[in-house]
């Protein structure tokens, strides 16, 4: 493209959005049939650079519309409206085993979308883009408040929507990776739920499995008793280890009566008396079942197979009385979640449970653990406490299928929560 040509017009909307809202990208004022590259660049809180890009050719009117046109190459192919977000990966030369996570849920993530002349695949830094726009993506809607919680031994952050309320509540229990990712609770509050992002105890901090269980029950009570929360509309939301804890609570707690339960990538294995932190780790007994993939990444999946019928090794899901949504990917290489879920379904049916147990299963996907449009990365670093060694775990799924799974499962999750926690409360009047 010559210097004299007028610069193309790159537009993106909305420029400030929640992370689960899509965005539309268009380029106009190009010459017809012009090859261009659209690139999305983001610098994480850890200062790593992530990028996604697609190769396009403008149409007869000199326009490229990402929602309508096919990418011919890059980090994604085909007509993919939001692939500039979900196909992001660390730029060449980055450290390995990275995962894109935001610790500060209250500030936006910034993305720079640029259009380059020609089909570019590398050395973007050496090239001058034709045009550029910036987008902010937020976990919190304006007015959502985050409050630190240090009460009755419970630790976490409570996110509260704006307005007089009252609201349904959620206890958000994340994975066993430790730390306090607040993002999902912040996003759930933006959708109208008082959500507690629960900080976990450190391994070994609590002396017994019973004490660990009490911790979760106290956390649930804390949400239930909050002045802005409707006491009988408090749900459980668990990911991985958190999902296991949620299932166990829904089944066996005499204190916590959840309005509904969402479990992502978790099973009902809960060897009684054993610490929660121990159940996901390989033991001496099954360490022989550890596998590695072609890149020396660990696969933990087979540790829990075959699914045992022995009740002492799992939560008695026959006692669950609330609606349950299990979200799994069939290619989850970390836990045999599909087999677990099938076993749960058998157990519940055996006692004629009529409460819905929804089980969207996503072939070719690992667990859809992040809100939609987040980059899906196959292998990430994970600290195993017993050895203090950093190992790289394989989560499963290629880029495209898991992103569809994330988008679809998040919609289903929001619909499920709304159906069971915001159910119509007014009788339909008869005229």
């Amino acid at each position, binding site marked *: 493209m010559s210097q004299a040509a*007028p*610069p193309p*017009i*790159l*537009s993106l*909307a*909305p*420029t*400030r*959005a*929640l992370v689960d*809202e899509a965005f539309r990208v268009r380029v106009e*004022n190009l010459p017809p049939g012009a090859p261009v590259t659209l690139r999305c660049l983001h610098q994480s809180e850890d200062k790593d650079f992530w990028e996604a890009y697609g190769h396009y050719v403008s149409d007869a009117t000199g326009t490229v519309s990402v929602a309508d046109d096919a990418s011919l190459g890059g980090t994604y192919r085909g007509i993919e409206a939001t692939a500039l977000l979900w196909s992001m990966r660390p730029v060449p030369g980055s450290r390995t085993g990275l995962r894109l996570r935001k610790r500060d849920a209250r500030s936006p993530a*910034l993305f*720079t979308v*640029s259009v380059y002349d020609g089909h570019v695949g590398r050395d973007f830094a050496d090239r*001058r*883009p*034709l*045009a*550029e*726009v*910036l*987008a*902010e993506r*937020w976990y919190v*809607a*304006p*007015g959502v408040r985050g409050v630190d919680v240090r009460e009755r031994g419970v630790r976490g952050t409570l996110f509260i929507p*704006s*307005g*007089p*309320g*009252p*609201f*349904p509540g959620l206890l958000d229990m994340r994975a066993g990776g430790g730390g306090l990712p607040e993002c999902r609770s912040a996003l759930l509050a933006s959708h*109208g739920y008082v959500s507690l992002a629960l900080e976990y105890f450190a391994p070994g901090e609590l002396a017994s499995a019973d004490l660990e269980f009490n911790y979760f029950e106290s956390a649930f009570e804390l949400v239930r008793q909050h002045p802005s*929360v*409707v*006491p*009988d*509309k408090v749900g459980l939301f668990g990911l991985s280890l958190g999902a296991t804890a949620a299932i166990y609570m829904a089944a066996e707690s005499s204190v916590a009566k959840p309005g509904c339960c969402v479990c992502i990538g978790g099973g009902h294995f809960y060897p009684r008396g054993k610490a929660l932190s121990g159940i996901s780790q390989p033991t001496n007994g099954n360490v022989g079942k550890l596998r590695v993939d072609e890149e020396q990444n660990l696969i933990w999946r087979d540790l829990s197979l075959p699914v045992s019928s022995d009740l002492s090794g799992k939560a008695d899901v026959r006692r669950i009385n609330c609606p349950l949504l299990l979200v799994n990917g069939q290619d989850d290489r970390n836990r045999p979640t599909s087999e677990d879920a099938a076993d749960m379904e058998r157990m519940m049916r055996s006692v004629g449970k009529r409460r819905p147990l929804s089980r969207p299963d996503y072939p070719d996907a690992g667990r859809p653990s992040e809100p939609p449009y987040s980059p899906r990365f196959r292998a990430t670093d994970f600290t195993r406490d017993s050895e203090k060694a950093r190992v790289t775990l394989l989560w499963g799924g290629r880029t495209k299928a898991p992103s569809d799974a994330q988008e679809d499962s998040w919609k289903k999750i929001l619909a499920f929560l709304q159906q069971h*926690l*915001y159910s*119509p*409360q*007014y009788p*339909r*009047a008869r*005229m």
Partner: protein
Amino acid sequence: MIGNRARVAVYHHLIGKQLTSYVGLHRKLCWLHSAIAVRWRTGSTPAPILTATPARALVDEQISIKAGFLPQHCPVTLCAQMRSEDGDRWEAFGHYNTSADGTVNLAQDHSVGGSYLGCEPMGLFWGLQPAPGERVGLRLRMKNVEIPLTVDISLMEGHVSPRERESAELAVVTTERWFMTPGVQRIDIRQNGVVGTLFLPPGPGRFPAMVDLWGMGGGLVEYRSAMIASRGFASFSIAYMEHKDLTVQLDISGADAYMKPSCLVCINGPAGSNMELTQTLCKPKTSESDQRFWPQDNAGYLSFREMSSPSNYSPGTQVKIENLACPLMYILGEDDQNFPSTKNSNLIEDVLKAARKSHLYTCLSYPGAGHLIETPYTPHTRLSVWELKPRKILALWGGHVAPHAAAQEDSWKKILKFLDKHLRA
């Protein structure tokens, strides 16, 4: 709460009596059940859901406001409230009735009362007016354009006024209205006597550009330039009168020798005057001794109607319109009470016709719109304070709320298309 007691009293009064209006009674009853249930706070029912998408938007963007999980066919009020930078309260409201599925959707439903009527998705924004009890003659002018206007949208039970927000409020959603898109740069310019602010869109450029000139209110007004830059044009807003950093007296004679614009947009302005405007009124600063005598009409309002009427132009003050060399778009509010905009537009059109340059002229004429045609979805000002000292003068700008809002929305789209056409070709 008074509202509750009144409703309970109505209920008792109606028991055993002939029902005069079945629909009216149903409406009262549907809220009686819920009012008591909601207020009782056993907490057995979550509040209805109110959403605004996108919650963070540019000032010229439409947003979608919806409410759900409400009783069906019930009266509700949607209300917008905002505090200006000076701390004044502005508000707007619309009265709606929920549909059969217990929802309200401002993109489809009709307001039956309040600040606006009919289907108006953005009525809560352009309908904003100073709240009762606020100072008279307010005008919303954002000084810090790098932060948003925060507008709280509330959902209230019944057809009420915003005053009853505390007792009747069911849900709130906070929206942010931004003048700048992320990445737009704001640059202070104080150079060679020029005082202004330059706004650049994000990216390497180069950008089509415009110079943004405001009226005799003076100062340095930035919000339109910030918006234009958010739409991809570099925009330079300059001050030419009444600014602390100005040292140079405006002199427009001879300007045409070096200014060759690619196009012009004029909003409600004169093509001449009955005095040397620039020397008499457009002074860089006012000093103690320097008193300006603003023209006023018989009612005491600031008025340029006499001064700027083409029949009164002093020789030499009329712009040489026949020398126009680029497209001109003239935006005209037919209810402009301050300037004789229609007469000026007619003059320009006549002169261009005589010079065989009619093809350069576009006039957008808006019935019911006043003088201050600005960015869309911003409040309409019919009357504001022009000067407080040495004496208070009010300016009557004209226009009526709904047609003025329509004019702002339509003209903005057309301005952007016009700039696109003539600056990007």
